[in-house]
């Protein structure tokens, strides 16, 4: 039993890690990013190939890929982000979905559908505490998820940029009137979200196989975690991650993978209908930035 709990919590941290970026992009900016899963997939492939060719550990490449992603989105991809932010929600859905399809199939074309994984010094390492066993890699992700959650939380709360982001999210027009360059804020936040997601991808490589369509499942979980935890609430994402992680660990024995998806979708609809603000979201704020 305690094994299940520990697995669940570690998994929860993992799920939170892949969702933090989406929380910034969808939760804070309200940009529906259907390519979120593909961001993870691309980052995983990048980490994979750098390991394959240069023997660079994925954890190290994660620390390189993330800032690179950030820079990319702040510079080269900037006009794209601006255009995305200016589009209606349906437009966003389809533009990002289209990007997702392109990325998925590029990966398919270039790397084939084969499942690939890395085998680093520690990727098979397991730790035992009493009767409980878990993998080191998952522990690392879990710990980092806590770190990132705390860091991001304080950043948004205390730093000037953080407050600027929150102001823009609450009322774009007023933020503009207060002299905030909302475009910059959107691009910055998006880039930050993308970078964190890319970082998560690197962390995931020692744990999961990578293949072109791996993104969908991650994206699904990320959306549920973000909405369950509360859009825009960083601690909420962590909490949401734990709930889903524990649920999955505890029910893993009893139900099949597809039924698990079914349950996720049902939870999803239930949250949306009953408490769209999520666990930690502020009631009423779920509609901010929406139509």
């Amino acid at each position: 039993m305690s094994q299940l709990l520990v697995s669940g919590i570690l998994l929860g941290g993992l799920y939170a890690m892949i969702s933090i970026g989406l929380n910034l992009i969808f939760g804070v900016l309200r940009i529906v990013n259907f390519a979120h899963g593909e961001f993870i997939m691309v980052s995983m492939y990048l980490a994979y190939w750098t390991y394959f060719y240069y023997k660079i550990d994925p954890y190290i490449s994660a620390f390189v890929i993330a800032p690179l992603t950030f820079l990319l989105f702040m510079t080269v991809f900037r006009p794209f982000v601006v255009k995305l932010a200016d589009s209606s929600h349906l437009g966003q859905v389809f533009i990002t979905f289209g990007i997702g399809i392109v990325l998925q199939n590029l990966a398919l074309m270039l790397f084939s559908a084969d499942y690939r994984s890395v085998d680093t010094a520690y990727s098979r390492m397991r730790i035992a505490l009493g009767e409980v066993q878990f993998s080191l890699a998952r522990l690392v992700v879990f710990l980092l998820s806590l770190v990132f959650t705390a860091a991001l939380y304080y950043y948004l709360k205390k730093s000037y940029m953080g407050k600027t982001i929150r102001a823009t999210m609450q009322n774009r027009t007023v933020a503009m009137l207060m002299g905030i360059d909302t475009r910059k804020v959107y691009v910055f936040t998006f880039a930050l979200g993308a970078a964190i997601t890319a970082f998560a991808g690197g962390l995931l490589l020692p744990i999961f196989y990578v293949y072109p369509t791996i993104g969908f499942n991650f994206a699904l979980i990320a959306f549920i975690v973000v909405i369950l935890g509360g859009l825009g609430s960083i601690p909420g994402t962590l909490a949401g991650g734990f709930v889903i992680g524990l649920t999955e660990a505890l029910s893993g024995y009893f139900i099949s993978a597809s039924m698990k998806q079914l349950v996720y979708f049902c939870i999803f609809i239930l949250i949306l209908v009953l408490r769209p603000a999520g666990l930690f979201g502020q009631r009423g704020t779920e509609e901010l930035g929406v139509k």
Partner: protein
Amino acid sequence: MTKHRSLKHEFGPIRIVLLVLPALLALVIPNAFVRDIAILMMLWSAAASAWNLLGGFAGQLSIGHTAFFGIGAYTSTLLYINFSVSPWIGMIAGALMAALIGVILGSITFPLKGPFFSLSTLAFAEIVRIISISWSDLTRGSQGIVIKYTPGFGKFVFDSPVPYILIAWLFMIGVYGVAVYFNNSRLGFYLMAYRESEDAARALGINTVTVRLKAAAISAGLTAMLGTFYAQYILFIDPESVFIVDNSLQMVLLSLVGGIGTTIGPIIGGYIMVPLGQLLRSTFGDAVPGFHLVVYGLCMVLILMYLPGGIVSLLNRRPFGGIRLKRPDRRRDGHGSVGNA
């Protein structure tokens, strides 16, 4: 009568040509590939038009419509396999079933705004898909159902492509007709009013819930009928063909590309995207797996980014109806319409 919504315009010479074209081509050109594309084109144009009734006119952007498509396909097929009910009757049954489910789903999800509504429709469609796979006692699960090839009008199976061409065409014209009706009726005006401003609509006496539920029922029912047609044309259905999200997205994409909220938009979208997709798949499909989808995806992204009003907006300097894909500048009451105390 306003100029662009009149029957004279909706059935004007250019429109007539456009509407008749695929059927004409399919009948005249004896190539099986061309005929297949024409039929699929008309099928998906009709499906997109049916989606557009709810998505374009009412602004309720569902990305789960494949659920209705599949419900139609499975209802008529299961009735036929198990009870020998003619698929024509099964089609009506499927439509009614879908309409009912559409209304139930709508009443639960309509209060949700924007992306939340869309996401919930997606979740719903996926739930239906997973159920269709797991409840294999009813649906034969992943292995799907084969419909026996026994030609006969009553069985809705034909040995020549001509009846299929005509039926697909009739469906397309039929749904177009419904769209024209929407454009020129109280229901349609009320839906559009809701789409533009829910508060204004309510203040003008419109029961926005009832009106949308009606649209949902009609849209779902028509989509289901097309699912039945699909089943009878392909003679094989399984969850991976009739319940997948790709179908939902196809319906929306066609409407977006052609011009969402317009009557002819979804049809134009179908004329462009279906042959494009089929041609890409047949040219590149096997050689370089995934390439045709890369091109398809890029087309999607480019059109949506640079032509949000769809093709129709190119042809008309003034886009009529339809959802503006650019988000208007937020007014000061960002928190909702009721204003401040």
